[in-house]
């Protein structure tokens, strides 16, 4: 039914574009013609002829488009299904009617330009609402499915449980329905894996990124900076699937060999390799944000420190960095949010086994890996495993949103202080 609907709307759209656009063109033509003939008779108009043309176009389009939108809403909510052919006929009739009204309303006193501009501004406003709707859409889609998930699985078991094994839940569902899915959706191992890999990534990204930023902002010559900055940015532009492949094929075997050399045992899907590679990916994020902040620390502070006899490094460590600390913290938080939500690297290199361990050489799985795994399998859409993806997605959303907002607030505070 829903599949049919789309094909239907597709053809309807085709009709609209073949039917409505010619109507609009006719409306523009007729309205401008009308103003020309009246002007010829010596009347003066409020606006230019083109404005009246567009005014007629607006009148032609809005009744038809409103009707189509209404029909689409009705079909989607399942109140009534409007057959495509009827809709097209109705839309074309409305367009013809609107055309007639629009052209008739054209007269010298009409403030066509103001009306048309008002419509344009409303359209622009509507476009700017799309981004709001996107956020709302993400929040709603995640929350609705997550609520369904938490109806099946106790929320406290989800947060504090240490055993993640959705396959068993499927067995339960197939067998006795009375059996609860208790303990099988314990998310602690997933979060442990996520934080382990994030911590490793930040251990790589923060020192390298921060020192690169210090180098570029304080030491480097303009030419060096001009080359180094875009080169670092390349790291951020490499697709994550490529990093994932690199982590799985090149870095993991290297780590296994290195671990063997010092007498340790490492899995091929260890937590270390995605962590390191993810850290490399985040270096440019940390460095470019910190760089911006460090360069916006007022020069007077630097010079003051140097005038008191401090070495360059001492002025950086004792004056510039403390002043830039809010910005660096915000860069760190954004880096963490990026690492927590990163998917492809961990999907390809971190493994699928939920594992509660402190050893980064063992395989661990993360929240994002389980989301991908749950949604790319062939379970029914309302199975607990599929829904669990949305439960995990909700946690991910809340966490990253909180990090982003905190980092935004921190950086705003910094800007107020120095700018």
């Amino acid at each position, binding site marked *: 039914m829903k*599949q049919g609907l789309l094909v239907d709307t597709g053809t309807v759209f085709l009709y609209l574009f073949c039917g409505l656009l010619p109507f609009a063109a006719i409306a523009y033509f007729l309205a401008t013609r009308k103003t020309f003939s009246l002007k010829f008779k010596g009347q003066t108009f409020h606006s230019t002829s083109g404005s009246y043309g567009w005014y007629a176009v607006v009148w032609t389009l809005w009744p038809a488009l409103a009707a189509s939108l209404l029909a689409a809403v009705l079909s989607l909510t399942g109140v009534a299904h409007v057959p495509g052919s009827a809709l097209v006929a109705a839309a074309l009739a409305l367009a013809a009617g609107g055309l007639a009204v629009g052209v008739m309303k054209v007269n010298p006193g009409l403030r066509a330009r103001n009306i048309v501009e008002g419509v*344009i501004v409303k359209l622009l406003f509507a476009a700017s609402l799309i981004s709001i709707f996107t956020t709302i859409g993400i929040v709603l889609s995640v929350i609705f*499915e997550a609520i369904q998930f938490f109806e099946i699985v106790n929320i406290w078991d989800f947060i504090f449980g240490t055993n993640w094994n959705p396959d068993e839940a499927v067995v339960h569902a197939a067998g006795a329905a009375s059996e609860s899915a208790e303990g099988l959706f314990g998310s602690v191992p997933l979060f442990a894996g996520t934080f382990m890999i994030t911590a490793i990534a930040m251990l790589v990204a923060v020192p390298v990124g921060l020192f690169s930023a210090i180098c570029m902002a304080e030491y480097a010559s303009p030419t060096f900076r001009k080359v180094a900055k875009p080169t670092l940015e390349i790291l951020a532009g490499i697709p994550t*699937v490529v990093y994932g492949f690199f982590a799985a094929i090149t870095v993991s075997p290297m780590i296994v060999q290195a671990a063997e050399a010092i007498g340790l045992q490492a899995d091929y899907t260890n937590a270390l390799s995605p962590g390191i590679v993810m850290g*490399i990916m985040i270096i440019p994020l940390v460095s470019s944000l910190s760089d911006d902040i460090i360069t916006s620390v007022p020069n007077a502070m630097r010079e003051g420190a140097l005038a008191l006899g401090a070495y360059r490094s001492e002025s950086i460590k004792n004056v510039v960095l403390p002043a830039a600390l809010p910005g660096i913290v915000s860069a760190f938080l954004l880096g963490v949010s990026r690492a927590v*939500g990163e*998917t492809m690297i961990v999907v390809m290199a971190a493994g699928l086994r939920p594992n509660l361990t402190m050893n980064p050489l063992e395989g661990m799985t993360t929240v994002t890996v389980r989301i991908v795994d749950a*949604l790319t399998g062939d379970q029914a859409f309302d199975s607990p495993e599929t829904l669990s993806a949305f439960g995990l997605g909700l946690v991910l959303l809340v966490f990253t949103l909180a990090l982003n907002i905190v980092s*935004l607030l921190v950086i705003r505070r910094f800007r107020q202080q120095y700018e």
Partner: protein
Amino acid sequence: MKFANSLSQVKKRKRRDRRFKAYSYSAIALAGAFLVFFFYNIISNGWTAFQQAELKVEVTYSEEAMEMGNWALSEEMSYLVSRGYTRLIPVRMEEDKTLLGTSRQEWVLADSEVDQFLKGKPNRLSKAEKTLITEMKSHGQARLAFNTGFFGNGDSKLPEMAGIWSAAVGSMYVLIITFLFSFPIGVMTAIYLEEFAPNNKFMPIIEVNINNLAAIPSILFGLLGLAIFINFFGVPRSSALAGGLTLSLMTLPIIIISTRAAIRAVPSSVREGALALGATPWQTVLTNILPLSLPGILTGTIIGLAQAIGETAPLLIVGMMAYIPDAPGDFTSAATVLPAQIYTWSSDSLRAFTERTSAGIIVLLAVMLSMNGLAIYLRNKRETKW
């Protein structure tokens, strides 16, 4: 404090100062070294995939070969030639009836194991087969030729037949949808926020929201695409339409942010000049501000699209990792994209696919780097300096 003591302290401070500077330069060197190692690694893994082994064999188009392609080849060759080639022999004979009863020497696609052997990589050929191939090579009957199939074929279960064509077409479809949705809406939003938005309490919400959208993990956009576009609006799963719509929401903030920056860079004297000549606000935007900020807008759009072309996670969620041997015909049929193809190949156990994965990555990186290069070129050459 004694003089000698403070002198040694100064020396210590000086050493520390030098060390700090060295650390900062070595951080950049480290990142640069990684970049070099990374590209070296990917290219050395992948460049061999641009060549493919071919064998010169006697093909006999007999009656039996009509039934089963294997019969057209000698027995030992039928193990070394790609099954993808032999399978097609009956089809070709059906199309060209004159082939029947003839026999000739042809360069044909070799099996992936032969290919790996000729490239000096680990393979599963037997010792006898290896000597045979070496002998054929010394007689000029085995060669590595440019791999046209890699660019012209779709995905295949046989590594020697697998190519990126269907994924490239899928990527193009997705990119078209992404552009069609995100560009107009993004530019309109930016124009509204910069030129028309009233100064009320609602506007900061939109602004914070756009900045937030840019930082939301991409996988959550996949969840949105699955729940809203596929389950609610009934867009077909795995289609370029579903993927493109999802990616357009991700690209939107990038386009909005860069368009706003470009519009803000237009000096207000331009705006005031147009208004003073009697232009309406919208006419000012359309005839003065947009043309002047267009290079900046295009730069941002290209960067956004380059990011979209490498995005994988949300597309996996909306099902764009299906096995697609043929290029999709339209926006609603099942499709796959380049990064998703790379992902599926990388998880294949056959070694010959590793090489193809790297080659796919080289193609993807080349496309992305040239898009970014175009964006930088546009920014440097076309942007007006005020």
